[in-house]
């Protein structure tokens, strides 16, 4: 249980809705409530951001969330402890950490992976670790039975096959150029990218992120792949509502998950 692959397998139609939140924004207690509520609302896999001081792949919305969480002095250990509590309470939704290389490296890659396994996390997504640098992390995580998720981008072209062949958990398809953030339309050739991934690694699920905010977009991306990832749209809601965010975020996730599961 708690594996990334389970998230896709357990979904009603094999398509996963994957929300992202920054742990500790607005507080670690609210993050804990959000995870439980989003799981009940149909989230198949949840990305938990461990805040970083300089998130270079993020747009302003998630940058601000990182700043808010760090102002609350939220640490990597606080996030592990929270996940430990969630598991103790019987929350079984697969959870994957999304953070930056230095957060894992400074904690100690082995120690980080060991804590992940201990508390019941499924792996890590590191947007500043490309294929060329992946082994340093992936070998250690694999020893704990955990996945390091690979990303592919609209600029990946001939790199897609090699990245996909070596991918674990799922392939994160970055839909657009630029950083995270809501976009009115996604113009990349997603079906073309998916076809290359499937050809290189037929067993690996893939999900699309960056720029998705509406149920229509999510359904379209899930139809073209195996899932949709939504970060900024949720984080913006959390930023605006603060501690009152749980209800509106839950309603939003319910609507988005339904759209993905109806594909």
């Amino acid at each position, binding site marked *: 249980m708690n594996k990334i692959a389970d998230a896709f397998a357990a979904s009603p139609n094999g398509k996963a809705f994957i929300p992202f939140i920054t742990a500790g924004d607005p507080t670690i207690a609210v993050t804990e409530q959000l995870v439980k509520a989003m799981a009940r609302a149909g989230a198949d896999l949840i990305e938990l951001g461990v805040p970083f*001081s*300089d998130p270079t792949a993020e747009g302003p919305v998630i940058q601000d969330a990182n700043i808010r969480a760090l102002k609350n002095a939220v640490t990597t250990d606080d996030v592990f402890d929270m996940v430990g509590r969630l598991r103790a309470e019987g929350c079984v939704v697969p959870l994957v950490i999304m953070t930056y290389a*230095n957060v894992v490296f400074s*904690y100690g890659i082995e120690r980080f992976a060991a804590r992940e396994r201990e508390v019941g996390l499924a792996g890590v997504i590191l947007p*500043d670790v490309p294929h060329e640098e992946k082994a*340093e992390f992936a070998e250690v995580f694999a020893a704990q039975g955990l996945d390091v998720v690979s*990303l592919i981008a609209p*600029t990946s072209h001939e790199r897609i096959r090699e990245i996909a062949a070596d991918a674990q958990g799922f392939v994160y398809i970055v839909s657009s150029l630029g950083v995270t953030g809501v976009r009115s339309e996604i113009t990349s050739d997603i079906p073309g990218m998916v076809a290359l991934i499937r050809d290189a690694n037929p067993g690996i699920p893939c999900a699309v992120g960056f720029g998705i905010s509406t149920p229509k977009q999510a359904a379209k991306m899930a139809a073209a792949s195996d899932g949709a990832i939504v970060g900024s749209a949720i984080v913006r809601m959390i930023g605006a509502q603060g501690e009152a965010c749980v209800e509106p975020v839950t309603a939003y996730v319910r609507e988005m998950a339904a759209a993905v599961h109806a594909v």
Partner: protein
Amino acid sequence: MANSPSSRGRFGIHGGQYIPETLMNAVIELEEAYDYYKDDPAFNAELTELFNSYAGRPSLLYYAANMTADLGGAKVYLKREDLNHTGAHKINNVLGQALLAKKMGKTRLIAETGAGQHGVATATAAALMGMECVVYMGVEDMERQALNVYRMRLLGSEVRGVSAGTGTLKDAVSETFREWTNRIDDTHYCLGSVMGPHPFPTIVRDFQAVISREARQQILKAEGKLPDAVLACVGGGSNAIGSFYHFIGDEGVRLIGCEAAGRGIDTWETAATMNTGKLGIFHGMKSYFCQDEYGQIAPVYSISAGLDYPGVGPEHAMLHDSGRAEYVPVTDDEAVDAFEYLSRTEGIIPAIESAHAVAHAIKLAPTMGKDQTIIVTLSGRGDKDVAAIARYRGEDLHE
């Protein structure tokens, strides 16, 4: 396999390519282009022509007789990068990268800047070569270096303020990387120091190595022997690696990088990465960084906007590990004293960044023999700093 994991662009354990996948093909394309042009006689002839006829190279190696007499020890030579066009060593790298970008068919340059020197140099090269240019600069630095902001605009560049984080150099670097992921096809990121993902640390070092290539010949001509020590200030480390490079193989030459200690390495208000940082991964590279126990990058401080960076280039990290180079901390107070000292003693106003190297020379020279020599790289001129130094001394100038 060309892309075998973790084998690319390493200096010892440092370096690498820790960047988003979106940028990987861009740095691979850059590496391929550079590998071709670095050995291309036509490219090198064109660059040398730009260096000599536009930037004013070779720069002088000046014997600082007054300083030498006053300090009473080693003979002090100053490598005068401050005399280059745009007033700093930054132009060396920028002319090289702009020319390379042009050969690659790029029409637009983006760059980060701290003190504004690299931004001004990039804006200058863009104007010369008819390229579009956008410079990212922390809002705090825009305040500290308002003249350079205007200078860049005068040169036809757009300056975009970065208010994220501490509003200084590291935030400007982050924002420029973000912009590069947004627009790659026509845009080259003209990185200003020997940092970031491979191949930048190598490219920038090679273009800055002209400093030690000249200095080595010049000192041999003047003294008939190699220097005993070479000193340069280190932020990211581009003028330092340029000053060290052609002396690395000469074991008798001490290589000394002077870091910005700010208010002291026992305080939080410091930017002395080698002396206070630890191994980490940031801005595309593995190297030493000022950071907390959870890997959060520290909000560093120095009086010098150009040294106010929490990391250091990977080749310096390797030279530090091997002991080939030494890295010493120099405080704000020491740098300001040296700024005033060189102005009075030699009639040369150094950049506050370069004053960090001068400050260490003031300490080092008296401990050495009169038959020994040291080269201090003056990476830039100090006109941009005059108002800030006056403020530091409690005087407000209204320009």
